[in-house]
Each structure stands twice: as structure tokens, then as C-alpha cells.
């Protein structure tokens, strides 16, 4: 508290020191002599004071979000060892004070040699791609419908969409299991209606993984789409109609191109996390649904092979940087507009 007060006083004194705005000192008591040192300190504060605001979050994210990637890179170049932590040092000093510098590229070679990594990465890409497509097909009309309602309905509908978005991811996957398992609601209903005569096996199949991703990521698609569709200038559509364009034509000529930033931002928000999905393939998928997140988890906790797991993470990250950069590009564009 006191420190904060001191800071504010300094800036106030500065205003007076500049001579621009003479004013009474706020507090009673002895007026400090404006020594040269104090003016210097105040000037420093004025020039660099903003760093007191910028540096805490910048340093925190730097140390605990960005620098960890450097550690992952370092450990991906180490060797597995039977000790705690389970990897060797890259730099080591021998008793006769020689510094040993060992880089082990074997982990990365291993990623190419063992096809499980490549296959699971491609499988994750495929799963994420088709789920994104379905989310887009379902989310676009939803966002468009919300954008066309009145302002007050919009805020209610948005809350309806946002609520599951914040509700526990794990619990929603679990809730879905209650619907699609062998004696779940879906099978019971279909049996009761006489559409099927024996329960469908959905759990532990690829279909369950798709359903899980679509169900949990749908809000991520709807929200950015809504944000662009809401801003759409309606007079453009009216102009198209006046010039004789049928509604579907106007949609493809006007609405869709203008909503492209939302389509891309929403698709990225679904696609990128879906590639690394771990919970859904583990809880809903079968043994065939080896997505990269699951492989990574098993490598880490099952095999305790941290260097290989780090190498998988680094390779995965490098392959992700492109899509992430694309997402950043479009999201900043959206923010600016």
C-alpha cells in the first residue's frame, strides 16, 4: 500500500517539478526538498514507469509459458536414463573438468523410424479436419440464425451457447457417454421406436470420437462466426436482392466471403485443439483411435520415456506453428476491425 502511495506522490511531484501546473501539495507536513536525485528518480519513473505494469505479465508468461518450450527442446535432445528426472544432461562436467556436450538426435530419428508417431499424427489431422467440417456445417447456420434475431434475443442465445463452453470439458464428455453407450438414451430410444432391433455399438468406435469432438467444440465454432456475421452490413444483401439476386446467390456472393475471417478463426479454434485432443479418444474411442495426444500421454506416463515424449511434443509443435500463425493473423485482423 505504502509503496503504491509513494509512486503516485512521485508522479504528482513531477507535475509540479515541470512547472506546468503549479498546485498546492496534497498533504500537510514538511514539503520535501526537490533534490536533484529525487527529480532524476521521478524522471526515471515517468519514462520507465510503464514497465512496472508491463513487466509482471510479460515476465510471468515468458518464464512459465514460453521458456518451457526451450526446456522441452533441450530434453528432446537428451537420452533416457534410469534416474530422477529420467533423462541425461546435455552438458556435463567430468571430474577432470572437461565439459561434455552430448546432443542426441536419436529421439527425432526414432519418430520417423517408428511409424506409430507419423500414423497417429496423420490420424489426428484427419479426425480434426472432418470434425471441424461438421462443426462448421452445424455452427454456421446456428451463428447465422442468432445473428438475425433481435439484440435482446441475441444476448440470451449467446449465453445459451457460452454456458456449455465454460462447463467442464471432462464432464461433458462423460455426459455424452451416457447418451451413446450401449444401454444409453440413444439406443433405448431407437429400440423403443423400433428403428433398430439390437443396440448400436457407438462407444469405443471412431464415430464416438467424432461425436465427442463435435459436441464439445461446437461453441468454439459458433462464437467467432457470430462475431463476424453480426457485423455484416444488411444493406448489402438488400442491394443484391434489389439487383435481382436470389437469396442463395446473395449468400454465396456477399455473406459467405464477408464472413470468411469468422470461418477461419472458428475452424482454427476447433481444428488446432482437436488435433491434440486426449480426453475424448481415451474415454470414448477404442484401441484403434490412436490420436497424437493419447500417444504422447502413454509415452510420458506409461513408458516414462520423457526425451521421446519431448521430441513428439516439439515435432507436433513445429507442425502446428503454421495453423497457429494463421489463426493469430485472422484473430488480430478481427480485433482491429
Amino acid at each position: 500500500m505504502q509503496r503504491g502511495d509513494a509512486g503516485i506522490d512521485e508522479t504528482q511531484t513531477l507535475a509540479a517539478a515541470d512547472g506546468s501546473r503549479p498546485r498546492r501539495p496534497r498533504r500537510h507536513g514538511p514539503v520535501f526538498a526537490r533534490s536533484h536525485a529525487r527529480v532524476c528518480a521521478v524522471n526515471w519513473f515517468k519514462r520507465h514507469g510503464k514497465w512496472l505494469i508491463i513487466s509482471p505479465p510479460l515476465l510471468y508468461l515468458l518464464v512459465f509459458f514460453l521458456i518451457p518450450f526451450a526446456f522441452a527442446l533441450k530434453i528432446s535432445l537428451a537420452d533416457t536414463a534410469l534416474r530422477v528426472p529420467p533423462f541425461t544432461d546435455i552438458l556435463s562436467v567430468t571430474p577432470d573438468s572437461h565439459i561434455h556436450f552430448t546432443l542426441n538426435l536419436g529421439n527425432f530419428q526414432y519418430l520417423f523410424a517408428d511409424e506409430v508417431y507419423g500414423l497417429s499424427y496423420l490420424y489426428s489431422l484427419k479426425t480434426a479436419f472432418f470434425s471441424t467440417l461438421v462443426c462448421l456445417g452445424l455452427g454456421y447456420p446456428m451463428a447465422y440464425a442468432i445473428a438475425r434475431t433481435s439484440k435482446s434475443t441475441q444476448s440470451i442465445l449467446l449465453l445459451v451457447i457460452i454456458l456449455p463452453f465454460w462447463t467442464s470439458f471432462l464432464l461433458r464428455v462423460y455426459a455424452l457417454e451416457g447418451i451413446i453407450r450401449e444401454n444409453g438414451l440413444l439406443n433405448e430410444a431407437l429400440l423403443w421406436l423400433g428403428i433398430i432391433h439390437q443396440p448400436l455399438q457407438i462407444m469405443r468406435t471412431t464415430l464416438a470420437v467424432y461425436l465427442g469432438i463435435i459436441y464439445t467444440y461446437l461453441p468454439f465454432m459458433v462464437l467467432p462466426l457470430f462475431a463476424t456475421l453480426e457485423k455484416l452490413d444488411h444493406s448489402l444483401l438488400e442491394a443484391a436482392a434489389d439487383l435481382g439476386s436470389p437469396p442463395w446467390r446473395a449468400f454465396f456472393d456477399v455473406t459467405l466471403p464477408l464472413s470468411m475471417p469468422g470461418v477461419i478463426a472458428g475452424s482454427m479454434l476447433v481444428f488446432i485443439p482437436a488435433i491434440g485432443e486426449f480426453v475424448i479418444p481415451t474415454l470414448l474411442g477404442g484401441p484403434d483411435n490412436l490420436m497424437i495426444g493419447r500417444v504422447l500421454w502413454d509415452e510420458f506416463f506409461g513408458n516414462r520415456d520423457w526425451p521421446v515424449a519431448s521430441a513428439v511434443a516439439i515435432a507436433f509443435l513445429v507442425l502446428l506453428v503454421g495453423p497457429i500463425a494463421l489463426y493469430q493473423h485472422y484473430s488480430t485482423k478481427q480485433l482491429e476491425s
Partner: protein
Amino acid sequence: MQDRVPPLLLSVLCLGIAILYLPIIVLIGYSFNASSLVSVWGGLTTSWYTQLLHNDQILDAAWLSLEIGVVVSTAAVILGTLAAISLVRFKNFRGRLLLTGMVNAPLVMPEIITGITQLLLFVSMLHVFAWPHRGFTTIVIAHVAFCTAYVTITMQSRLQTVDRSLEEAAMDLGSGPVRAFLDTTLPGLVPALTSSWLLSFTLSLDDLVISSFVSGPGASTLPMVIFSKVKLGVSPDVNALASLIIAAVGACVLLAGYLMRRSEQQRLKDAQLAEQ
């Protein structure tokens, strides 16, 4: 915007909302099912809820998760607000691009990668500094990182709409910039700060993957306990627990939404008053 929504669009919207809510409603329904066989309806009961109160493992985990959530959201709101102020008010500083990137990246970064890299950092730090030991501390540090990103984005969009004329007036009257901000702008930010806090709290409470990586022996958060139970299949006491969490989180989000909406209305009202 038109008021009439084409029926086809409306039906897709209803279908989508039904897909989002049906599983949750069914889950809550099952949590009151007296039969321990999940497929058979055996009448209403609340016994699964009372059983939870006697399950020490779940109570401990719930308490740990709540403690973590409170510490994390408080720290994340402070750091995230500072980051938002930096990004909105200081247009040019070294590291601005870096900060923007680090704030946006956690939103799309697969949790499993964040979790692994953070664990590797903590392990190396423990090796060198003998701190932090894996458990409460490491979970808090890891959660603060991604919650800060979410808070920054919320506060950033709120700060961009702030009318700065009051703050400028305060500075003209001799307030220092910090004082002017605290006296004029901050009170208007309270609803947004509260909702950021609540949202960070739910994010921290929900996190499974990052916590699993950075946690150590003996520190199991609620999602970690639920995950190990759920892997064994659907069970009625997990239904009850899940319903409770969903209700609590739902209440948090509704409150956050209400606060945001009220502050927005207040802002519009103020703007109208200012024009008159």
C-alpha cells in the same frame, strides 16, 4: 437485422442447442436415479449426493481444487489486467508483439503440449533451485499462465471501450496517471474484473490435462479423481458429483454473464447521459 429467422436456420439452431444440452440434462436426471444400474429407472433418490459427503477422496480433491481455483483466479486477474492495460494503453513498447503472441497462444495450444513443457520446466527448476515441489504450487503456477491469457483477452476488449475523457479530466486537475486510472476508470471495470475472476475460476476448476502433468504424488484435483473414476465406466456417484459441478459452474457463468451485461447497459446509459 431482421426479426424473422428462416425456419430452416431456426431448426438447425434448435437442433444445435438440443445437442449441447441433452447429455447434460440426461446426466442430471440419472444422478437422481435410485437404481444403481444406470440403465434402469428405479425412482427418485438423493442418496448418491449424500454418499458424496462421506467420500474422503472426493472431498479432499474438491477442497484442493477450490483452493487452487481461488489462488489462481486472483493472481490471473491481476496479471491479466496488467497485460490488458499494457496492450491497450501502451501502443509501442519492446516486447509488445511477444506479449500479444503469448496471450493468444494458450487459447489454441493443445493442453497436452503446454502440460508437458511446463512439467519439464518444473523438473529442471527443482533440480537447480530445489523449488517448486510438484503439487499445489506447480498446479497453481501452470493454471495462472493459461488463465492470465483468458483474463487478458476479456479485459482487453473491455478496456478498449472505456471512455478516457474522465481520466483525462482527472489528470488535468492534477492527478497522476496511476491515480487518475484508479479513481475514474477502475470502478467501471469492477464487473468485468469479477466476471474474469469467475471465468478463471471455472477454467482452473475444470482443467484435467495440465494438472495431471504438473501435479505430483498426493495432489489430485477433482477432475483428476473424476477422470480415474470415469475410465472405469459410468457410475451413479460420479453422476451426482458431475451434476453438482455443472450446477456450480453454471451459476458462476450466469453470474459473470449478468455482471458483464449490466456493466454494458450502465455504459450505454452513461454514454446517453453524456450526450444530453
